[in-house]
């Protein structure tokens, strides 16, 4: 074998390794990247893409996983959250998946991550330039609940006919006296395309407005990708006499005393004792490490879990 053949052989083998990086083949990644570029070029517009079979069931974030797989490179630091938490089964297994197939460093720290994949939250720590937020979307079409005909919803987007979306807000006020609806609250992106940011709570909607980070949305089953590029206007829909507002809590986080973060309610026992804690586990842990203490900061959630699932009370 001469030198030339040797080089060719080693090229072939490194190419082979390259082909399997991050699970998807290069062809597929290119196709997804093209969809992502289109999505960035037309903020809020749902770009169809050839969604692939992924080794997880629909509803487990196949759209988000494909977007991540198409983008992730060896120097990326990957974070994955589910319901705001890094340690849920879903988040852990998707993180492991990318640690294995893309050989990237993973993290629970929002500050350290370059790609953050999420299902229900945008982290509390403001995102920065260079970060990519990948959101897994079950239903990309905000009008679907009211109009089942795809031809009709497409026409509504094409001609910017968004009156129908207000019908759902109207219904909400009629039923609850206010615009309820926590997750997937509709927004207008760059004053043009109606977009469902589902399923983040409306608490997180303002974080999208003029965000320095790139926000990408992937819907695997529905085969759609859409984007909010950095520094894009994002407006939550509302009525003049019922302005948009986010959820508020009277209490602070019981662990880190935060008054600003989105809180989850945790039931502690059968007699109705409960506590409110940050849904963003990294945010809460970082604050505690920085010396912030809530009213129950010594409390162990694991113990509470045991008592909740029928274990002996301590």
């Amino acid at each position, binding site marked *: 074998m001469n030198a030339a053949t040797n080089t060719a052989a080693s090229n072939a083998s490194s190419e082979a390794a390259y082909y399997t990086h991050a699970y998807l083949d290069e062809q597929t990644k290119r196709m997804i990247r093209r969809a992502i570029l289109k999505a960035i070029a037309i903020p809020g517009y749902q770009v169809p893409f050839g969604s692939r079979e992924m080794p997880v069931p629909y509803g487990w974030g196949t759209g988000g996983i494909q977007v991540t797989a198409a983008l992730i490179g060896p120097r990326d630091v990957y974070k994955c959250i589910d319901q705001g938490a890094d340690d849920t089964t879903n988040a852990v297994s998707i993180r492991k998946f990318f640690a294995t197939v893309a050989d990237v460093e993973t993290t629970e720290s929002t500050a350290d991550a370059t790609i953050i994949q999420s299902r229900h939250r945008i982290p509390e720590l403001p995102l920065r330039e260079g970060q990519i937020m990948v959101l897994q979307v079950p239903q990309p079409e905000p009008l679907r609940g009211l109009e089942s005909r795809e031809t009709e919803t497409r026409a509504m987007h094409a001609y910017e006919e968004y009156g129908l979306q207000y019908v759902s807000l109207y219904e909400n006020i009629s039923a609850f006296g206010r615009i309820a609806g926590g997750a997937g609250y509709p927004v207008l992106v760059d004053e043009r395309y109606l977009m469902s940011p589902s399923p983040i709570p409306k608490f997180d909607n303002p974080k999208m407005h003029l965000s320095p980070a790139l926000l990408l949305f992937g819907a695997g089953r529905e085969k759609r990708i859409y984007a909010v590029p950095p520094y894009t206007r994002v407006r939550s829909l509302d*009525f003049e*006499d019922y302005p948009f507002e986010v959820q508020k809590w009277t209490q602070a986080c019981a662990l880190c005393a935060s008054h600003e973060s989105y809180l989850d309610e945790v039931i502690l026992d059968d007699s109705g004792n409960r506590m409110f804690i940050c849904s963003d586990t990294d945010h809460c842990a970082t604050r505690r490490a920085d010396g912030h203490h809530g009213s129950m900061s010594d409390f162990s959630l694991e113990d509470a879990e045991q008592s909740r699932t029928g274990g002996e009370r301590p």
Partner: protein
Amino acid sequence: MSAALALMPDDTPLLRVEGLTKRYGAIIGCENVSFDLRPGEILGIVGESGSGKTTVLNCVSGKLAPTSGGVQFKTRRHGLANIHELSEPDRRRVQREDWGFVHQNPRDGLRMRVSGGANVAEPLMNLGDRHYGRMRQATIDWLNRVELDISRIDHKPRTFSGGMQQRIQIARNLIHAPRLVFMDEPTGGLDVSVQARLLDLLRELVRDLDLSAIIVTHDMAVARLMAARLMVMKGGHVVETGLTDQVLDDPQHPYTQLLVSSVLQI
């Protein structure tokens, strides 16, 4: 009524249909249909089932593209325009802003997944109203006007009777003050007594609002009650037109004579 029409100052038609033909493959839906509609005029299109009434109505209202022929309408935005030559968004806007369309089957004209009240308010939202309180009040006013119990404003359409669903549909199609309303057998699926009350209501509204309307019906009694002028269709063709009283009292075409006499037999 006819004398009043003749004295109307604005004599230019609101709508002009010329040589309208629609073929479904080899089947003729309608052929070479022409008519004018003046502001404030109610035109009835009558004829047996399959005679082409719905085809004409759908072509005129822009729901269906004709095979040939033109539909000129005095739009608020574009002036006199051929509906089928407008771009799709412009045509949809005319449909939204200038027209109403009452379907025979409330399921085709209502959103069954949202409340009756929201159904009535939707056209306002489609026209850009973003004030809930104002729209709510307008909805209540319209529910009163079509004699519906406003305490049921937030109930879903399926909880209402057929006649009440039609009232919701009528309110939904009048709340935005359209200039022309299309109705396809608006009382078709209803019991006779319910139908009579609904017709009374429709007649009052049409008169009070000085509406222009095209109403399709196979029922000559409905035609007599509602329309000032009639167009009789058979096999996709217009066989007779004229003032309602003339057409019904002194029908010229044998087919019209048959239609009128069949009513008398009932």
